[in-house]
Structure formats: C-alpha cells, structure tokens
C-alpha cells in the first residue's frame, strides 16, 4: 500500500486549516480550521500506523481527539462568553490583552 495519496490529502487538509486560521476573522471558523489541522495530523498518523503495521499511530490519534474534544469545550465556552459581552465573534476585536 502506498501512503502517498493519504499524505497528499493530509497535507491539503492541513494547509487549508492553517490558511483558515491566518485569514478568517470569525472565531468559530478559526476554531473549525484548528480542528481541520488536528484531523489532518490524525490522518497522517493513521496512514503511517497502517503502513508500519503498529498501533502507535492509532493510539496517538485517539489522544489527539481527546485533547481536541477538551479544547472544544473550553474554547467554545470562551467564544460564547466573549460574544455575549462584546456582541462580536471576530478575533480581531478581542485585542485588549496587549502591550
């Protein structure tokens, strides 16, 4: 089995995610792009796991999912709270913490 196709897809997904994080202003979208990057990584992990016939990569993928789930809980809570106080979900508007 050749991993090339899987890795190309993973790279594409990762690039889309990174571009989204840098370009989009809406916090929810930025958040989803982060998830996209994480899942691109998961895809690469699983492909290598399959390639090498060991379960390490799959275990790592589970860990990433768990961390991502926890992150979603905290992150969404922060975003909702910011939206309630400032009536905006733009990441550029939440810029009080600076020099």
């Amino acid at each position, binding site marked *: 089995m050749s991993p090339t196709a899987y890795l190309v897809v993973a790279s594409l997904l990762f690039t889309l995610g*990174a571009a989204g*994080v*840098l370009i989009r*202003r809406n916090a929810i979208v*930025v958040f989803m792009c982060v998830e996209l990057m994480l899942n691109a990584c998961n895809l690469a992990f699983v492909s290598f796991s399959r390639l090498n016939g060991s379960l390490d990569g799959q275990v790592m993928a589970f860990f990433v999912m768990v961390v991502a789930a926890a992150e979603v809980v905290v992150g969404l809570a922060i975003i909702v709270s910011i939206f309630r106080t400032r009536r905006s979900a733009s*990441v*550029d508007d*939440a*810029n*009080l*913490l*600076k*020099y």
Partner: protein
Amino acid sequence: MMGTASVLMSEPLLSQAALPGGATAATGAFSLLWLVIALPLLGALILLAGGRRTDAWGHLLATALPIVSFLLGTVMLFAMLGHDDTARTVGQHLYSWIPVAGFNVDVGLVVDPLSVAFVLLITGVGSLIHIYSISYMEHDADRRRFFGYLNLFIASMLLLVLADSYLLLYVGWEGVGLASYLLIGFWNYKPEYATAAKKAFIMNRVGDFGLSVAIMAMFATFGTVSIAGVAAGAPEATKGTLNLIGLLLLLAACGKSAQVPLQAWLGDAMAGPTPVSALIHAATMVTAGVYLIARAHAVFDLAPAAQTAVAIVGAVTLLFGAIVGAAKDDIKKSLAGSTMSQIGYMVLAVGLGPLGYVFAIAHLLTHGFFKANLFLSAGSVMHGMDDEVNMRRYGGLRKAMPLTFIAFIAGYLAILGIPPFAGFFTKDKIIEAAFDKGGAEGWIYGLAALFGAALTAFYMTRIVAMTFFGDKRWADEAHPHESPRLMTVPMLVLAFFSLVGGAMLILGGRFSTWLEPVFGPEPVVTHTIQPVVLTVVTLVAVLASAGLAFRTYAQQAVPATAPAGSFITVAARRDLYGDTVNEAVFMRPGQYLTRFLVFFDNRVIDATVNGLAALIGGLSSRSRRLQTGFARSYALSMFAGATLLIVAVVLVRI
C-alpha cells in the same frame, strides 16, 4: 626563652625581666587592688545609668569614691614601703580574657613603684578636682552627668596605669579618650564645642592607630603583649623591629600627649569645663604618653633611633607650646600652650634614656600639682568674672580674689623653677640631664630646654601680670569676687604641693631610689656644665625674661584689643599654623579625594550600571510592541517559526 632572656638582659632591665614569675602575688592590702579601679567605675555606672534619680546625691558619691581609691592607694604605698626593693612589684590576676592557643591575654593588674605614684597622682588630684567641681558646676543642670564622666575618666586612667599588658593598657587608653571626648563636648549645645570634642577624638585616633599597630608588632615579634614579656623579649629582637615599635609608640604618645605633629587638638580642648582642663588636659590624661614611653623603656633603651625621635619631638614641642602660650589672650589657651610645653619637657626627658626617666616622672608629678592648681585658679578667676576668658578684660584682680591670687602665685613660682619650689627641682633637672646627654645632641636639647625655661617665665609672668596686676579692664557688669571654700581649699592644697612637691621627691635622690626597681639604678653622669653654673644661668634667664614680661604687661597699659603684633605673634596666635598645616596636608587633599571618588562613583560606576539598565529597558520597551493583541498575528508568527524550523531541519538533513 624567659630564662635566656634574663641572662642576656642589660642591667636596668633585670627587675622587669623577672616580673611574670617575679611579681609577687597580691596579698594583704594589695588584694584590694582591683577595687581601686572598680570603685570609680561603679560610680560612673550608678550615675550614668541611674539618671535623674541620682541628681540629689550623685556628686557626693562620685567625690567619695575616688577619695576611697586614694586611701587604698596610700595604704598600698605604705605596704610597698614595708617590702624590699625586689618585692615591690605586685601582680593581681583577675581573669583570663582571651584564651586562644598561642595568644593568651589575661586581665591582670600590676602595681609597682611607678604605677603607685600614678595612682596617687590620679586619685589625689582627681579627688581634689571632684571637690572643686561640686561648687564649680553647682548651677549646671547636668552636674550629675559631669560627675559620671569624671568617674569614668578616673577608672579608665587607673586601668591604663595598672594594666599588666599593652592590650589592657589600650582599653584604658581608649577609655580616657572617650571620657575626654565626652567632657570636652560637655556643653555640646554650642556647635564649636562639639567640634572641638570631635577634633580631639579624631586626632587621638591617629595616635591610637600607632598604639594598636605597635601591639600587633609586639605580638608578631615577641608572641606576647604583656609588659613584662615584651621587656624580657626585647634584647633578642632586631634593632629594626624595636625602632619600629618605638616609633609607633611615639606616635601614640604624640596623639595622647598633644606633641608635635599631633598637637592641634589641645588648645581647642579647652572648650570643656575648667575642672576637666585641670584634670584631664593638664594633670593626668595628657601625660599618658610619657607614661607609655617610660613603661616601654625596655624597648626604647635598645632602639636608639626611636629614642632620639622621642627627644626631638619633646624638644620641638616644648618650644612650640611655649611660643603659642606666650601669644594667646585666652587664659585657658595660654595655659594649654604651657601644658604642651611642659609635657614636651617630660618627653624630652624620657627621650634621654636612663638619664631622664626619673626626672620625667618627677616633673610629671609636680606638673600634675602645679598645672592642676593653675587651671583651678584660672577657673576660679573665670567663675568670678562671669566666664570671661580674655585676659585683656582682667587686670588688678589680686585685691578682689586674694586666695586665688595666692594659689596662682604658688603655681607660678613652681612652674618658673624659682628655688626651692617644685619646678626648680624637676624642670631644672631635665635641663641638666639634657646637657649631660653630651655631644652636639646634648647641646641642642640643653639649649632648647634652657630657652624654653626663659619662654616659660615670659608667658607665665604675662598671664599673672595681665590677670592680677595692672589696671582694671573689667567689663562694666563684672563684679569679681572670691570663690567659695569648696573651690579655694582644693586650690590651696594643690598650691601647697606645688611649692614643696619637688623638694619632697628630689632631695636626697628619694625618687630615683624609689623608682630603681622599675628603671634600674641611677646612671653615673659626667656633667657637661657644672650643675651650679647651669642653675645660675637658668635662673638669670628666667628672671630676666620674667622681668621683661612684667614691665611689658603690668607696668605698661594693656590695650583692650590685641595689637597687630609681629609676624611671630600673628603665627603664635594661630597656633603656629598647626591647623593650617593639617588643613593643607590632610583635610584639603582628603576633600579632593572624596570629591574625585564621588565624581568617579557618579560618572563611571553609576553611569555603567544605569546605562546598562537603560539599554535593556529601551530594548524591551521596543520589543514590547510585538505584543499587539491580535490573535492572528501571533498565529502568523507561530506559523513562520514552525516553517523556519522545518526548513532548517530539512536543510540540515540534506
């Protein structure tokens, strides 16, 4: 080491060498030796710690304690007379002070013919001055504190002369320095008096430095700091070491005894109350330098260069003090010049070696009597004249204050050396011994001492004439009156001893026999000039000079303000530029040095530190700007960083 040392010992040192083992243990009357010091110390403690509660009776207690010490001293004198010459050195070990391996210092006292003479002088004159002060300080709100300090002084001075090691002597030495400082600045609400106290203290520190280094050098050389141990080890030390120790001890003596070049503090020390000037700055403390050199005679006898330096310092100071004393209009400062000059005589005498030790100590004792008497009389005059010290405001006081006049004249006759009064026996002996030194050296010392005697006659006659003779030049509100009994009686007692003290000590060689266990037998002298001739010459010089002064200051009118005077008078009024020299040599360069150091500190050290801090501060306030608050810009920098890392890893792999 001790055994070989005593074999090698030259004759005059024998008795000292035997001291550590040879000092008789204190029994009988001598077992109370520690009390002599402890009593005044206790008095000082009670008065200073007791505060206002002791105001009512403090001065009586403080006067009684030195009197008890004096009686103890007298008992010891008689106990000593009952012993043989060899058993007259009595040691009392109190406790072990510094018991370290290789360095043992015990607190021990030693009383021998020399120190018993000092004990009697200190407690005797001290007691009389305490009695005098009861009346003199009567109207001072702080009389109790004054008496506390006086007792502290007496205790320290006794410790100084009874100590059996140089280290313990140093404790007493510092104690008298402290008491002197406290008493000069007793009226320290006047800024110039406080300055005078500071000046005395600081100039004394220079001398104390010499003493402390001398003690260290003694320990390094002899392995001990006990007086007897040093005397025993001296013959085995090299000349260079002994000269060094001798010169350091001389520095110490110069500071404490106001000898050139550390003389400038004594004139200003007259800021203290007059009884203090009489006790500390005339009779006792300032003679501590002479005592130190006489005590360390084992070192000086083997260190000719240091001994010559001592004699030169003495000869210079005796002229210096006399010239200053002759120009001052302030009666106390004039007497201070005289004190300096008379101590110069003593230092000259101890610098002559075995020829002069006995006469130095004899003159020290008689000087203690007559100078204390002169100061107390001067204090009595000031008391009657509303604290006026300018002699140009006195004149014709002999009728107003007859008893003071009699006491002053007794001191005057004693210091001039008119036979058969005290100075004739002690000061003229020093002049004689100076000539007997022989050679060019002897002539120089002798002529200096002779000229000093003539100057002494001049300035003393000037003081007497300006104060007691001539027209009344009193301030309008002055009503001179005789002082109360409490003041005149001590003066008259001292006056009595001023008159007969010299004859009591010197006639029949009594004092040199008495001090033989300390200084060794009297050396055989070959007279340069026959004593009779010298006595006549000295007397003629003294009388001529006194006559000149009397004609100038008693028979002619004394102007109320000082005339301009020749350049010598101007110089002498300014203490022969002693302060100017100190300012030019030490004060100004010191100030320039501190100014430079302040500049260096500000401009170099602080500038470096502050510059570094400013640089880092500036850098960080700029890099702070990177923290923009935009989450996406952080994400971009993370992305760029990650990309850079990957590129780097890839490049390294390839």
